[in-house]
């Protein structure tokens, strides 16, 4: 840089070294304060959540976390048990549903699709990520829910009904199952676009080397692409899981509400996020508001846990290194 500047600003040359250092200092300061601001923000949110949850923390203590109850009128007992259960079931099942699809899409787009298709299909999948969740939720109520209820749930119940998971379908179209499918659709584009980038980053020599050794495409994918991208795929899946755990609006629209822990996926329930979204606006008593903030605190801790374990998994997998 100074080599270019030198001919034009000879008089300032002695200063320029110091000026650069000042700039560096400024940059460091600005970026450091940005980083601190993020930290402070998280700390403030956590503090505010604890303060807001106090009425409920005082009343119910730690037992709140596993108690299954939410009765603002008669017994005035609150608990997070069924919502934690709902969050875990819906997000894990959505991930299980979305992961193979997303990886399939990513593989097809990077390894198998004819070149003229790759651009448009990639764009389409990514458009899915841009659809606002409230719109997906609305579509969930009006189109997906009834379709699942009329065509998918009865079939699953008839063929796999011996499993408690596939009990009697709910006549109204809202259920855990609808929420799971909606969530799967919502996390599909994230997981697939991150994995697509990962698969693209696999060095061409490795892939061609494998093919040259006479492997089939599938053997090449299994032996080269997957091991190389292992850590990244895990991270992509966790990203998807994080999105599913935190999604509130679309889930509130299709999950149907309710306070119960049951194995039947076709029954209604609530997740932590959907319960907060549904009840916070109209909550009237201090205890109910406190309990909702307590739910938010649990949700934050839950997300933090998911993120931390994700980082651990990614670190462990990448330490093993590409095969």
């Amino acid at each position, binding site marked *: 840089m100074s080599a270019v500047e030198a001919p034009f600003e000879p008089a300032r040359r002695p200063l320029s070294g110091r000026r650069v250092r000042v700039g560096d200092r400024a940059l460091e300061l600005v970026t450091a304060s940005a980083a601190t601001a993020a930290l402070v923000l998280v700390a403030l949110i956590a503090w505010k959540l604890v303060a807001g949850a106090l009425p409920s923390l005082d009343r119910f203590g730690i037992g709140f976390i596993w108690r299954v*109850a*939410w*009765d*603002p*009128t*008669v*017994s005035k007992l609150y608990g997070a048990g069924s919502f934690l259960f709902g969050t875990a079931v819906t997000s894990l099942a959505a991930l299980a549903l979305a992961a193979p699809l997303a990886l399939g899409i990513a593989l097809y787009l990077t390894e198998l699709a004819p070149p003229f298709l790759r651009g448009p299909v990639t764009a389409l999948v990514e458009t899915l990520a841009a659809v606002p969740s409230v719109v997906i939720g*609305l579509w969930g*109520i*009006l189109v997906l*829910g*009834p379709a699942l209820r009329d065509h998918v749930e009865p079939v699953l119940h008839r063929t796999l009904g011996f499993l408690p998971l596939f009990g009697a379908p*709910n*006549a*109204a*179209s*809202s*259920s855990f199952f609808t929420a799971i499918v909606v969530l799967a659709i919502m996390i599909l584009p994230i997981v697939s676009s991150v994995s697509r980038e990962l698969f693209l980053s696999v060095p061409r020599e490795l892939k061609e080397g494998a093919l040259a050794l006479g492997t089939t495409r599938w053997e090449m994918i299994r032996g080269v692409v997957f091991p190389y991208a292992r850590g990244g795929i895990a991270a992509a899946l966790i990203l998807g899981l994080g999105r599913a755990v935190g999604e509130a609006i679309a889930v*509130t*629209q299709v*999950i*149907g*509400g*309710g*306070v119960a822990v049951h194995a039947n996926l076709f029954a*209604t329930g*609530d997740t932590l996020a*959907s319960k907060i*979204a*549904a*009840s*916070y*606006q*109209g*909550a*009237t*008593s*201090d205890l*109910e*508001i406190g309990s909702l903030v307590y739910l938010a605190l649990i949700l934050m801790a839950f997300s933090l846990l998911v993120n931390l374990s994700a980082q651990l998994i990614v670190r462990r997998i990448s330490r093993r290194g590409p095969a």
Partner: protein
Amino acid sequence: MRKMGIVALAALAVAALAGTAAALASKQDSTTISGAGSTFVAPLVAQWTQPLSQAYGFELQYSGIGSGGGIAAITSRTVDFGASDAPLSPDQFAACKDCAQIPWALSATSVIYNLDGVKSLLHMNGSVLARIFMGSITKWSDPAIRKLNPGVVLPDEAISIVHRSDNSGTTYNFTDYLASVSTQWKSKYGTGVAVDWPTGSGGRGSSGVAALVAQTPGAIGYVDVAYTLQNHLKYFTMRNRSGRYTTPGLKGILAAASSDQKPAKDNSLSIVDPPKKYAAAYPISTFTYVIVPLETSKAAELRKFLFWAVTKGQAYGPRLLFQPIPKPVLVVAEQTIKRIHPSA
């Protein structure tokens, strides 16, 4: 769509607030009256903004953040008034310190259903409705429903119950009614903006409930009345204590509200299931409340605004299916408004 409209209105209001914030800063601060709370009453309050500014030069700022949020905001005095669909509980009154609630708008809840081949305006009464929502009547062909509807062929279909999954004044009104007609409902589930429903699926907002009812054959649900009429849903005529079946229109709401029930000492006033002599009354009608501090630095402005709201402001209601509040309630409201005084 009404709830969505409200959300859109709220968003617009916020945008407008942000836009006018700078302009306001230069104006005299005392001409701004800020409020927050019930989304249900938000469209009505929005109608008031312009005429109030013309009449008194007041800048009315209202955020539809929900009844609970409104109560919290007035308790911490971050706004000049709060608005709630459910009356304050004694605890909330204590926390709010020297607050008063004033009934300032009046509307109703309708019970909707989805039955192919059956016309709108089926007959229903309170005890059968409570038994349906408690899950003890499960079929449309149940003798109890058939008895109310002689000559109507009711299908042998299961009843699917749909309720609100979010907290709402509509749920308060509806459960207040169920609790007043069924002691079993009262003791087991009570009255509130949300209750521990024995059965059924929840929809988010009136639009969510209507959507679920619309595509679930055999469904029954409840939404605020403006929503029903705008969206042409099938709804019940409700049997009142005089034995008549009434529709949730302005006439029925007015009849229910003009019953001689006096507001309680805290000004709360439940008009569900009114006495027999109000033959035209629709039995699931409700007041909604404004909550104000009795001692405030803006006493003069607040008094002017509230007097206007409970008198001239009521004229903006009927278009939105808010029935103007009746005379006896108006008297009580005005008495309370007069008690607002400047801080010493």
